[in-house]
């Protein structure tokens, strides 16, 4: 299975060890989607992890144990359905094809599972229907 997590850390060197822990200790396949490190050594990274669920649970506990804040990401892109008028301006912007047109009604649908929280769609929407909650 594949899950996405937001990991917040306070020391800038932790990023490498996170990947190492996931791979070496838990046999998981991490894929860093986004990482941001501030000047003061704090930072946040979005990582998609592939592997067995049991291993993931243990890995999350292990990371929390070394002082990292770990949260599973789901529904981080939200679309205000009342505001959206299904124009489609977001459709060709999203790198992971999270938005699709309904082939019959041409309503724009959002598949939040695909979202990697890149943020590119947010300012492409002219009615401000999209927001990214991290």
């Amino acid at each position, binding site marked *: 299975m594949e899950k996405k997590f937001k990991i917040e850390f306070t020391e800038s060197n932790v990023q490498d060890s996170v990947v190492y822990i996931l791979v070496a200790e838990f046999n998981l396949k991490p894929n860093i989607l986004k990482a941001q490190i501030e000047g003061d050594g704090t930072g946040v990274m979005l990582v998609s992890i592939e592997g067995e669920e049991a291993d993931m649970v243990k890995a999350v506990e292990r990371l929390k144990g070394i002082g990292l804040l770990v949260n599973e990401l789901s529904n981080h892109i939200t679309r205000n359905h009342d505001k959206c*008028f299904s124009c489609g301006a977001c459709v060709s912007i999203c790198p992971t094809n999270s938005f699709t047109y309904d082939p019959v009604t041409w309503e724009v649908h959002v598949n939040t599972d695909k979202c990697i929280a890149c943020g590119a769609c947010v300012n492409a929407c002219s009615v401000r229907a999209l927001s990214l909650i991290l």
Partner: protein
Amino acid sequence: MTKTYEQINEKIRAKKAVVYTAEEVIDLVKKKGAEKAAEEVDVVTTGTFGAMCSSGAFLNLGHASPPIRMTDIRLNDVEAYGGLAAVDTYIGATALTSDPKGGYGGAHVIEDLIAGKKIHLHAWGPGTDCYVRKDIDTYITLDDINDAYLYNPRNAYQNYSIATNTSDRTYYTYMGKLLPRMKNATFSSAGQLSPLINDPHLETIGMGTKIFFGGGEGYVVWPGTQYKTNVEEVNGVPVGGARTLALIGDMKQMDAKYVRGLDITGYGISMAVGVGVPIPILNADIMRRCAISDEEIFAQLQDYSQPVDRPAMARYSYAQLRSGSIEYEGKKIRTSSMSSYYGAKKVAAELKDWIESKEFTLNQPVLEFPKERTLKGLKERK
């Protein structure tokens, strides 16, 4: 076989008119041929729901006591025109608040008015012998004010270009967000559902044509600004922006669902409005033209990172554009629309319902629009 407006209207009044949307009629004509279909079908409804900056509303705010001749007018802090009579004004869709980055403009005021919201009116005047008052600070609603009608000098563009960006940075344009190195392309016409694609030479559309406008009844009043006819045609339809319509309609009948304020990042404020035009099937030729499908309608790809002179790079059908991607010199470009095809379908379906069940009859135009017209550029002189 030919029909008259009166014959069609009689059937509408008797609730016996046969109405198809411009989408539904494609298959019918394919199956039965235009001659047969023209005998069967009385009206074809079209629809579009996209951005058009050349939009706005005339308002008469009513006189306060003591009265004021307003020369500087703000509605929710958006500037409205102060150069008409004492309490008349025009609010343009693209007008801004005093903080131009607020993301709110004239189009949003119009949407909020139609939605029934309270709007803050702040106005100033010179104070004259007959209008002594110098300022007013109050709230209005659509119900309170005497007149409120949308008057869009340009709407329902007959086709438009496809926008892409060949440069190395993201461009923020009125055609939306264009990613670097042609990662995406946007288009805006409703294609096979678009009003002026289905009656490309305006045989049935002219001054006085009654339409669906923002959820209420409206009228075509004039050729839209920048109306032109000298655009190359493929399958009888121009491959780029050509004819346009000026439209009018009572805001008190409208539905905010079909009149939307847009804040297009990096560009500014615009307005999307749902427009549906009914086309009377007077003969088989009109029927044939209404049956045009996305495979037969073409638009041209242009590079919006070029500030001037954007030559056509390639030509694609709306069927290709709607497939989600096009190919240019071996490269796949993802495509999506700026106008809502979902909305366009709703407009055409609702107009169909009005004709079938609400005795929405068709008007014969009182004035035909120009058969030939070219555009002038702006010459700069000393």
